């Protein structure tokens, strides 16, 4: 579904990603793991067209999309939920969700809204509330729900557990698994290794701009090199 070959990207002279190869198949949850500053968000932004890669290829549904405009990438169903709950604080929860369906799947707005509210019933109770007044976990749900309003074929979640309480993290990961079970392919970009591997099918471990490790999640959990790569020991 998504193929990344020899991807290089960075900011100006700063090279962050140095030759990444990656495959995502339909129906999977794939975790991209790594500590702070290894290039997770850069990879994310490159996939979404916010950063133009300096080398390599990205193939999405058979089409090359490296360097394509972000609007086009979103319209083709590759949707990102950005890091840090980037919601529209002064708009209502409903308006936030509706904004997710302008670029794509506008005709199915009502059906998708219903679907999102089944996944996130808490949002349903707060549709008319200002989004900025939601709790951290609810804001993350809102940002995720807004991404789902565009009927993504592939949803990239950037650090959905960031700043959430342990209980909320459990809830969030449970919901991610459920959304995936209903047919949405998911890339989970995370620092939370243990819980991510708990729900992912496969994982890539990013270290200093290259994938140090990759494989089925169940295998990686037991791999001693994981701790090494992650902690840089």
């Amino acid at each position: 579904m998504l193929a990344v070959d020899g991807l290089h990207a960075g900011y100006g002279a700063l090279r962050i990603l140095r030759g990444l190869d990656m495959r995502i198949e339909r129906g999977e949850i794939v975790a991209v793991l790594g500590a702070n500053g290894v290039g997770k968000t850069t990879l994310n932004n490159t996939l979404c067209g916010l950063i133009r890669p300096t080398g390599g290829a990205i193939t999405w549904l058979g089409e090359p999309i490296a360097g394509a405009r972000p609007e086009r990438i979103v319209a083709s169903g590759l949707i990102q939920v950005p890091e840090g709950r980037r919601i529209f604080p002064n708009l209502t929860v409903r308006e936030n969700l509706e904004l997710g369906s302008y670029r794509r799947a506008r005709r199915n707005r009502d059906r998708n809204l219903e679907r999102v509210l089944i996944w996130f019933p808490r949002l349903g109770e707060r549709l008319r509330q200002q989004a900025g007044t939601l709790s951290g976990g609810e804001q993350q749900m809102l940002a995720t729900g807004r991404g789902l309003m565009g009927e993504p074929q592939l949803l990239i979640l950037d650090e959905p557990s960031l700043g959430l309480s342990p209980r909320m993290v459990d809830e969030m990961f449970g919901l991610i698994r459920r959304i995936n079970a209903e047919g949405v392919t998911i890339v989970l970009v995370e620092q939370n290794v243990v819980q991510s591997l708990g729900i992912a099918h496969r994982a890539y471990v990013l270290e200093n701009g290259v994938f140090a490790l990759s494989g089925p999640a169940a295998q990686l959990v037991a791999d001693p090199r994981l701790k090494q790569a992650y902690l840089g020991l």
Partner: protein
Amino acid sequence: MRLRSGQAGALFVLAAFFLLLPQFVTSSYWLGLWTLTLFYALLGQSWNLLGGYGGQVSFGHAVFFGTGAYVSAVLQVKFGFNAWAGAAVAVAAGGLVGAFLGAVSFRYGLRGSYFALVTLAFAEVFRVLVNSWELTGSGFGMLIPLRPGAAHLQFTDRTWFYYLILALLAAACALVWWIERSRFGAYLVAVRENEDAAQALGIDCFRVKVVAITLSGALASVAGVFYVQYFLFVDSHIGYGPAMSVNALLAPLIGGAGTLFGPLIGAVALGALSELTTLALGKTPGVNLLAFGVLLLVILRFLPNGLMGLFRGRA
């Protein structure tokens, strides 16, 4: 984004009030005051489109107002244009200046106070230019020859100016109302609220902002054209001076930025306050500005969403 029930009722009351106003206001002094109030509401609405809905705060809206005023004046005086034709070109020029300013500053990611300062700088540059260029009347300004008649966009009966500015304001409000409910309006508000999130949803923030500043510039130049026809005069301080830039943002900020009726309510409040201070303290120059400053502080402290915040829970 959806129909607000209060808007239809408010619209009816407002329309009836403003249409019938000249029947009751017969003194030319009061009619002139209402005409100027509606003029400031129009100028404020243009600022509101960019600053209120789009969150791109301009401190130099005079750059658009002055372009409308000067282009129509120069075309009439120096090139023998008919006033209506001059007006059309002037409005297009205002939009063009907006598109240029937007393309230049948004391309380089200017936001917030940096964008505000660039608009201010542009207005000042234009002020200095027209002040020293012979074609624009340099320091003397431009006087439009008196040619009464609707064909020349001049009216001896001042009531017609009142109806003209009322129609222009109504058209501007209709445009903003339509934008508020359109897909473009949703994008614009998304850009104001959080540009990164808007981008993640596939919104082309640069394009949205350039379109907004182009429309805003064209609207402000409509106000400039009206000003020139009404006073038959413009100079560099009126056209491109900071006073007009401040006037453009005062009404929407006090009335409620990012709301349809905010600029009108703000303009009416400012007009009333200006009259009251004149009554209380006499015609000392600048005393009404002092009162505006105090009002602005009070509003920002207690009603961050402006006077419209009294009517609705949120802006």
